[in-house]
């Protein structure tokens, strides 16, 4: 694999009594979209702000694009783009003017109109930032971070507070960054966001990484049992299902029937046995459902404080 864009070893940071980051190790590679997922106060922003050069650290080694962010240089700043937590725009400037202002700070900026298209604000190009919707303002934030044509982009909670449709639009835009070959580090407390956007996800809780993998594999999701659930008429004899799956539980859901839940590592085989059993006895399997553990289940389990 190529050289990591970001490499962190044993990162630590405390504020007075509070130990916000308790030893983080992480490597992020070129063109990766990497999500740091965790509840508020887990240490996400502290970690990212150390990488961005805003905060000092108490311990550990950090390299971002080959530079220690504790000693940022202008040349290094040319190569990174930052979207801070919370919108930071000059309300009196239009979309185009805002981008022109920041473009002037870089030696080799992207074309402003190209950036406007990238973030989907063509129709608002002449609108002042104060008049934009929350979602549009956030996209302008991302546009400003892109205007210097950075290799590495930091997005700190890019969609917090968005309604679902604004969030979808923002996701499409971030997914589009993949085509530009950018490395993206994003923090979020939305599991779905990490799942949709990221190549890899680190779940962080109380200043530590508690899981690190692709969204599909996170928390050993592959190796955790799927669950098959269905409802059969009250009083149905379940002895024929003995030995199906690893766990079997049932509860009586009143006169409507008996709810059965089977945990299994071989969902396909077991589903075949269950349906065969039902057909043989002429039993209707109502509300039949096969479900893998969701990222949410994993997340809640891992971050349970």
């Amino acid at each position, binding site marked *: 694999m190529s050289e990591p864009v970001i490499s962190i070893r044993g990162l630590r940071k405390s504020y007075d009594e509070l130990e916000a980051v308790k030893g983080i190790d992480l490597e992020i590679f070129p063109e990766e979209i990497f999500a740091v997922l965790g509840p508020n106060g887990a240490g996400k922003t502290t970690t990212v702000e150390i990488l*961005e050069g805003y905060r000092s650290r108490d311990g550990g080694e950090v390299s971002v694009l080959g530079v220690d962010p504790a000693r940022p240089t202008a040349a290094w700043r040319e190569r990174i783009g*930052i979207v801070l937590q919370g919108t930071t725009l000059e309300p*009196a400037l239009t979309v185009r003017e805002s981008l022109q*202002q920041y473009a*002037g700070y*870089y030696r080799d900026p992207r074309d402003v109109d190209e950036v406007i298209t990238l973030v989907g604000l063509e129709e608002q190009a002449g609108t*002042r930032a104060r008049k934009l919707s929350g979602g549009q303002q956030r996209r302008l934030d991302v546009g400003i971070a892109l205007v210097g044509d950075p290799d590495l982009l930091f997005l700190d909670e890019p969609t917090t507070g968005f309604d679902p449709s604004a969030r979808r639009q923002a996701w499409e835009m971030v997914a589009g960054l993949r085509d530009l070959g950018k490395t993206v580090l994003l923090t979020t407390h939305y599991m779905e966001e990490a799942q949709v956007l990221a190549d890899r996800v680190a779940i962080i809780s109380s200043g530590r990484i508690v899981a690190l993998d692709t969204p599909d594999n996170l928390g050993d999701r592959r190796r955790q049992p799927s669950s098959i659930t269905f409802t059969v008429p009250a009083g149905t004899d379940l002895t024929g299902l003995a030995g199906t799956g690893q766990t079997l539980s049932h509860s009586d859901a009143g006169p409507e029937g008996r709810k059965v839940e089977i945990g299994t590592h071989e969902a396909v085989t077991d589903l075949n046995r269950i349906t065969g059993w039902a057909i043989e006895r002429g039993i209707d399997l109502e509300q039949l459902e096969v479900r893998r553990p969701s990222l949410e289940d994993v997340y809640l389990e891992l971050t349970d404080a």
Partner: protein
Amino acid sequence: MRQLNLAMHEFRFAQKVFWRNPASVFFTALLPVLFLLIFATIFGNDRIEELDGVKVTTYYIPAIVTLAVISATTVNLAMNVTIAREEGLLKRGRGTPLPPWVFIAGRVGNAIVISTIMLIVVTLIGRLLYDAPIPWSRLPAVAVTLVIGASAFCCLGLAMTVIIPSREAASAITNAITLPLYFLSGIFIPENEIPDGVLSFANHFPVRDFFEAFFTAYSPKTVGSGFEWGDLLLVAVWGLAGLVVALRWFRWTPRS
């Protein structure tokens, strides 16, 4: 060279933002003119015996110029830089390759240009409406007073951001400092109405000295080139103190 171009770039955007902000335009550009019209109407065209019989309106021209320059520099920077800090704009700027001094230079340059425009506007209004003479022969003194004063009061504005904790507090703290000094220094009330003890107290603060330097440069009774070096020195010392405070404690990240 590139850094100078960047400073010009930043200055142009500071100008745009200033003229598009109704509060800035009102308090910095319109209010001083309004004060001039009100004071001239109330106190009329009397002469001040204690000041070699200079006309009241002639007295008010340098007074309002002083007020306008302080509004464009100290008040403007204390408010707008604090707001930019609290909104995260300073922090965002620090995340770019832009040298920090350029960021400040654009705003300071804007404040000095606005000061110059206001000086010209107030002087012209004085000439056209109240027959206050334009001090052609003492223009170098006017210009030097403007440059030293505007620079010093910019530094004081940046220093004030250090003690202003939030955007809500910006206006209150700025006014609490400047308004009493305007009254004590003879900006609002002609100085012959102010007790000597009060004036000598006000002399320790730069508003009074800045005004005295402008008054000498503007007054038709002045003999000579009109430079008040003693007053300008005190203004400059205050400015340097402000600069030291700003360099030492200026914050780029939000405090609240």
